[in-house]
């Protein structure tokens, strides 16, 4: 206490002598380096790729088992199959009921769940690290011996139908659904979820076929982050749990080509909407392209966060919307950009104009030096912040694997970001241009159709029943 008081007084005197200049942000040292946890990577004889990342701060273990088995592998007549496989994986195995799986996972301080995206179906879990071996045994059972019990399949069908109806009550979902169809055409990225029809047709056999085809070790990446024993002990443990899992040939995946970007203006009619949800989107290069880092920075400048151009213009300056942002969503085969805002009905016309002007500016002018520095620092800083949680690192490792990126991708990330020049960002401005954008507006057509006709030939879309 004595010492503390002295230090305190000393500080007061110091600063009384040299008052702080509040008019400028304080000068600060450069951004600290951060070292990613070392990873150990190996492959079991059955082709299962394993990545271990040690993080001993908390007595927790985070697990991801990622398969290249996302919704793009859904049979044409069964959209949403991958999603249902994911939902039902933890609902029973040949030796455990859904209830036993849930209770055992909970007893180990964990949970096992799975989700499906366009490219991947990923099983995620975590547990108290002291329970790692039992938890991995449970996970191994779930992915090898899921049995899709009839009762659980029926329940999934029933509940998924209600959820779909709920989703389609939301303007944002309707917009995303129409947007993907318009952007991706006949490519399977076009669907984002099931249909009422495909839910009705779902059965045990289709689930099993999907599982047997795609959930195989040579199509999977097992990622572990947290406290764990030595690599040798982990190899022994993983071989015991996953070693007998049979390797299998995978079907040829031969998707149709992506359509070219072209000007489209779709109005999804949602009677009674008090506002219009606007999306303006393009197909764009993905992470494996040299355009990736310039596009990522351009997206930050345009619409990521509360100091972006869209936020400052459409929300702060014009007060048209609560939310205005952009998305750059890289997939394994391509990517898409999308600028998104939701505006009240009476300002739809000027809001579309403002949005188009902001989008056109991405290719007509260079981003400023300030925007460049800020977006680069933003990337470097957020990269560090995402490491705070085990799950943050685990999810990044999933991306590296499922997106087929080099092993040192995370290590090189900040370096790549730092080397981007303004002219490179401007060169990717075409992926935002209003000239060949796919625009989807969700709203009450009787109230807003006139307002958007100025921006092109409007095609009215009825939301799916």
């Amino acid at each position, binding site marked *: 206490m004595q010492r503390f008081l002295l230090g305190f007084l000393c500080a007061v005197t110091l600063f009384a002598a040299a008052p702080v200049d509040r008019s400028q942000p304080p000068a600060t040292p450069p*951004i600290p380096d951060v070292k990613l946890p070392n990873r150990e990577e190996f492959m079991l004889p059955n082709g299962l790729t394993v990545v271990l990342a040690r993080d001993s701060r908390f007595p927790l273990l985070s697990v991801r088992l990622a398969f290249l088995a996302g919704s793009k592998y859904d049979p044409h007549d069964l959209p949403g199959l991958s999603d249902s496989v994911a939902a039902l994986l933890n609902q029973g195995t040949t030796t455990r009921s859904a209830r036993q799986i849930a209770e055992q996972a909970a007893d180990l301080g964990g949970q096992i769940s799975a989700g499906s995206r366009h490219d991947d179906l990923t099983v995620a879990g975590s547990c108290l690290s002291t329970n790692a071996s039992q938890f991995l045994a449970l996970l191994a059972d779930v992915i090898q011996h899921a049995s899709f019990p009839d009762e659980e399949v029926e329940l999934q069908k029933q509940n998924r139908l209600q959820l779909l109806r709920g989703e389609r009550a939301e303007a944002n979902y309707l917009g995303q659904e129409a947007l993907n169809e318009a952007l991706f055409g006949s490519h399977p990225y076009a669907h984002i979820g099931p249909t009422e029809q495909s839910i009705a047709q779902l059965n045990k056999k289709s689930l099993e076929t999907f599982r047997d085809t795609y959930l195989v070790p040579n199509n999977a990446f097992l990622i572990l982050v947290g406290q764990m024993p030595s690599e040798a002990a982990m190899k022994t443990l993983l071989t015991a749990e996953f070693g007998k899992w049979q390797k299998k040939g995978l079907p040829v995946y031969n998707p149709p080509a992506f359509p070219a970007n072209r000007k489209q203006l779709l109005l999804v009619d949602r009677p009674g909407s008090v506002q219009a949800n606007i999306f303006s989107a393009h197909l764009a290069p993905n992470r494996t392209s040299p355009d990736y880092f310039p596009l990522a920075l351009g997206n930050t400048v345009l619409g990521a966060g*509360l100091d972006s151009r869209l936020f400052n213009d459409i929300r702060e300056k014009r007060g048209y919307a*609560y939310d205005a942002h952009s998305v750059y969503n890289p997939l394994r085969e391509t990517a898409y950009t999308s600028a998104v805002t939701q505006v009240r009905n009476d300002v739809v016309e000027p809001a579309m104009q403002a949005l188009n002007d902001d989008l056109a500016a991405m290719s007509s002018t260079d981003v400023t030096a300030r925007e460049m520095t800020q*977006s680069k620092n933003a990337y470097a*800083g957020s990269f560090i912040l995402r490491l705070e949680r085990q799950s943050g690192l685990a999810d990044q490792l999933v991306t590296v694997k499922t997106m087929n990126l080099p092993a040192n991708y995370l290590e090189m990330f900040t370096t790549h970001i730092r080397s981007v020049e303004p002219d490179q960002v401007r060169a990717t401005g075409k992926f935002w241009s209003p000239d060949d954008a796919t625009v989807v507006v969700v709203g009450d057509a009787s109230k807003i159709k006139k307002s958007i006709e100025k921006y092109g030939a409007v095609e009215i879309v009825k939301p799916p029943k």
Partner: protein
Amino acid sequence: MTKFSFCLLFAVALAAAAPPKINIPIEKYKLDNGLRVILSEDNTLPVVAVYVVYDVGSRAEEKGRTGFAHLFEHMMFEGSANVKKGEHMRFVQSNGGNLNGSTHPDYTNYFESLPSNKLAVGLWLESDRMRSLAITAENLANQKEAVKQERRLSFDNQPYATAIVDKWPEMVFKNWQSSHSLIGSFEDLNSATIEDVSKFFKTYYAPNNAVLTVVGDIKIADAKKLIQTYFGDIPSQPQPKHPDLTEPASVSPSSDTYKDPLAKVPGVVIGYPGPERGSDDYYALVVLDALLTGGDSSRLQLNLVKGKKSVIQYQGDLGWPFAAADDYRDPGQYATFFIYNPSFQANQIVDQYQDEIAKIQKEGISDTEIRRAVTLLLTAKLNELQTTLGRARLLAGFELLDGKPQIINSLLDRYAAVTPAQVQAVAKKYLSPDRRTTLAIQPEPAAKANPPATQGGF
């Protein structure tokens, strides 16, 4: 391998007997102007969280000014003497940081997560708006529009939201301070004046009405100097009174129905007045909630979603919907919101839920089940503690609401100490039908929904 398994089993046995030990370092002191400060050093990653919480929330609002605390929160991002409009976000996000603010019934928080080299920037930003918020007519007009648009987007255009934000509090609280809408009415938002904003700022945003928490990659002595530099000379103000939140002593059941033109699937909210914050009953109810609603092995999941196939989704908590179990002042309530299969009626869902409670009231719960619920709480808390921001939020909340930030280090022990008998007792004492409030939310076919319920009011 043999040795490894043995160690694991040993550890499991230990873990079941005692929760993992948490030892978050806490340095607590007060500046001369009354600002309470909590520092917690952790140098494992170059990250720091700066978290300021003000002792004012929607419950402190005055009649005719519903939604004002939230409107004011928006004003806090509109600039101050040395930070121009929009710059606050720029300084944080341009360094890769995260920031936000949120309005709760009993407090309003503002925070940033930053790479640790930017600690001084975070302190500069927070101190500048505490010292010299830019209160202008233009900012107020602009933020009124933003809040109204937020209301349209997040509430009026969303299924269930209007019922939950406007109607539910009116049903579970009799005292206007607790029962009025946190997001507020358009009429009240429109009538807020510059004078209101200035008065609110002076009264509630004084250093003596706030807690500053800094967690992460800091050196305590350096952080103290910086904090004194930036916050030390902000003048204190007379200490504002807490609103009188007293509810009538008698509790009576009630139920109502809300017709929702946006909902496609029916929902129902069921709630009960809660126990005293921090009491043994309170921790027992937190464990009971984990047992009922936590994860795939919870009773509601296994017995209603699975068994009866009646419920589709649910969420619930002490303090729901605007507070979580650890961040409100008494009186509180325990509520659960269900979305259910339309082939059932709302009263059947209520009965099925009440039957689940009745089973616990009659039969109690097993050791296995309580251990499972406690393990779930432990891991959820450990997950939350992983981030500096998660720790800052808890430390600040326990200081503001309880005056004891060290509760963070005893939480896991408090959960683990709850017995099956206590869980059974709180189920009996608090979750009985004669204390129950229910709100059914029924889809209203669009054709009949004119005007929308949100405009027609109730």
